[in-house]
């Protein structure tokens, strides 16, 4: 194993990337665009749900419910004096919910506590809800429940919340690590795959294999080149994330980079593996969706794995990005060291070892027997 040959391969790969301005731009712009696009469209915070609030009781208590709802960014609250038919109102005026607090709500509410549970009628709130969009509907239900909880003193239950891992982790904060993993995996896998298939098509592969370079040196050269690329891409994601979305980073950025580079190494291995299954560039393109779709859909990137149907969940654990997400989130959001997230860390390590080992076996075959 000779360092100069490894570096020769790394230098060559980097020079090739550098010369292809479109690929270069793609590599650098993709992380920024992905962060912006996913960041804005999946910021997770639903806003401006139109809600009609009808307060027929009009007391301090009901006023404070209204105040809570108005303070919530999710809602655009319109206050109405009365309503005859909430359903009509909802259908005609485009509200997504009509919240009606009937007369005597406040007195019933207090009486309920004063008199004891079983004896008196409860205060009731009428909620008319457009259920056609379940996400919006559940946001409304949650918002209303929050507002009732905010009544505080004398309320039915008080939830004592301790927020672990930071003041308030928003969706976007735990999204940034996933974007980093996704972009790095995508670029490293796809470009390694294309580059090696191209070597086969052009015949440079034969020239490489009669030269003194060893398979391990060849793979390491790719690993170094794409490790560097991964580092730059992570910097782009972090820069956009921090400057545009003010993402929160609790942990050590250095560890985050180590983990991202590790993941890039595995992705280079995966690209090399896939290259064995393609003889032409157009055959290679078939693998792109195969890499992208499971990563986006099953890795717990956009929604938690718990939200994936139970039947599909085992598949999630076959997707490398699942482990990268756990690992990077633990490191960046929770501020842990990599080994404090053993499942994610072990998953990424196994991914790296498995793909790199198999890749060198596969290279031996595609190097030797062709035609």
């Amino acid at each position, binding site marked *: 194993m000779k360092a100069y040959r490894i570096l*020769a391969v790394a230098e060559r790969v980097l020079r090739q990337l550098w010369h292809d301005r479109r690929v270069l731009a793609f590599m650098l712009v993709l992380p920024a665009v992905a962060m912006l696009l996913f960041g804005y469209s999946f910021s997770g915070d639903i806003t401006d749900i139109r809600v009609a609030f009808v307060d027929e009781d009009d007391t301090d208590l009901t006023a404070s419910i209204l105040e809570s709802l108005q303070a919530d960014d999710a809602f655009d609250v319109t206050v109405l004096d009365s309503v005859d038919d909430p359903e009509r109102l909802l259908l005609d005026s485009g509200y997504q919910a009509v919240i009606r607090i009937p007369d005597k709500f406040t007195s019933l509410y207090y009486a309920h506590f004063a008199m004891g549970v079983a004896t008196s009628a409860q205060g009731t709130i009428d909620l008319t809800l457009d259920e056609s969009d379940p996400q919006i509907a559940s946001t409304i239900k949650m918002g209303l429940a929050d507002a009732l909880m905010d009544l505080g003193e004398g309320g039915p239950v008080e939830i004592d919340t301790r927020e672990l891992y930071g003041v308030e982790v928003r969706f976007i904060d735990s999204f940034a690590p996933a974007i980093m993993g996704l972009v790095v995996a995508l670029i490293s896998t796809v470009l390694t795959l294309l580059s090696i298939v191209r070597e086969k098509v052009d015949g440079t592969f034969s020239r490489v*294999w*009669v030269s*003194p370079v060893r398979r391990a040196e060849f793979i390491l050269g790719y690993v170094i080149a794409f490790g560097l690329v991964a580092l730059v891409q992570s910097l782009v994601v972090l820069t956009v994330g921090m400057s545009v979305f003010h993402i929160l980073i609790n942990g050590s950025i250095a560890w985050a980079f180590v983990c991202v580079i590790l993941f890039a190494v595995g992705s280079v291995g995966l690209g090399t593996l896939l290259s064995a299954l393609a003889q032409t560039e157009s055959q290679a393109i078939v693998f792109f969706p195969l890499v992208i779709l499971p990563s986006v859909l099953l890795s717990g990137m956009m929604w938690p794995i718990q939200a994936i149907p139970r039947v599909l969940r085992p598949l999630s654990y076959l997707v490398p990005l699942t482990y990268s997400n756990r690992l990077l989130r633990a490191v960046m959001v929770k501020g842990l060291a990599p080994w404090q997230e053993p499942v994610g860390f072990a998953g990424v390590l196994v991914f790296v070892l498995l793909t790199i080992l198999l890749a060198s076996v596969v290279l031996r075959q595609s190097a030797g027997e062709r035609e």
Partner: protein
Amino acid sequence: MADPSVVFRADELTKTFGTLRAVDRLSLSIATGEIYGLVGPSGAGKTTLIRMLSGLATPNAGTATLLGAPMPAGRRTVEHRFGYMPQERAVYRDLSVAENLLFFGRLYAMSRARIRERTRELLELMQLEGHGQQRADRLSGGEKQRLSLACTLLHEPDALLLDEPTIGLDPSLRREFWNHFHELNGRGRTILLSTHYLQEAEWCGRVGLIQRGRLIAEGTPDALRRQVAQQSDREHPDMEEVFLILTGAAVAGGAS
């Protein structure tokens, strides 16, 4: 096999792909300082033979020997001493001419200074001066072919395996390539090349005629012509006639 003057050697070499015998119990021996041309129709097994001699393909039976080393097992001991030019114009499209040479030079442990020196020499030799910074995919077909040969010659190998080095070149360029070959040969390099231009067979020291994976005739161009003159009514057959009559005879011989 121990003869140090033998550069390329095949002993009963066989390679099969499925049911196809690409190379069929083929034996030949090429000594230092020879230019040996493999001639034969496409699909005859020329490329497979060259790939086995270069260590890229593993024979199913028989042995391939390069500079005394069994291939592919012993290729590490001779890898610095031979150059291989694949049939494809095997250069990196997205690298410049100079970067292509830089990469291969570094794989052969050449210093950057030495690579620069050799690049200058080779670009002059190949009439590619001024193209050093040009990307390979902006070169014409002939220029790319010359770059491909330059990559093969870069580390000054003693033995050259050239697979159809002149394919697709115009006649004048082909002449130039052959001038290079003879010049290299004059400096003691041993060359094994394949071609399907029969005219080029005339320019080889020895010619091996390959058909269906077997060596059906071998000798200097003159000897082959004499052989054909005796077999047929032609008094002064040209190489094309030699080829047609010998391959035809092989077919007929195989049938009888």
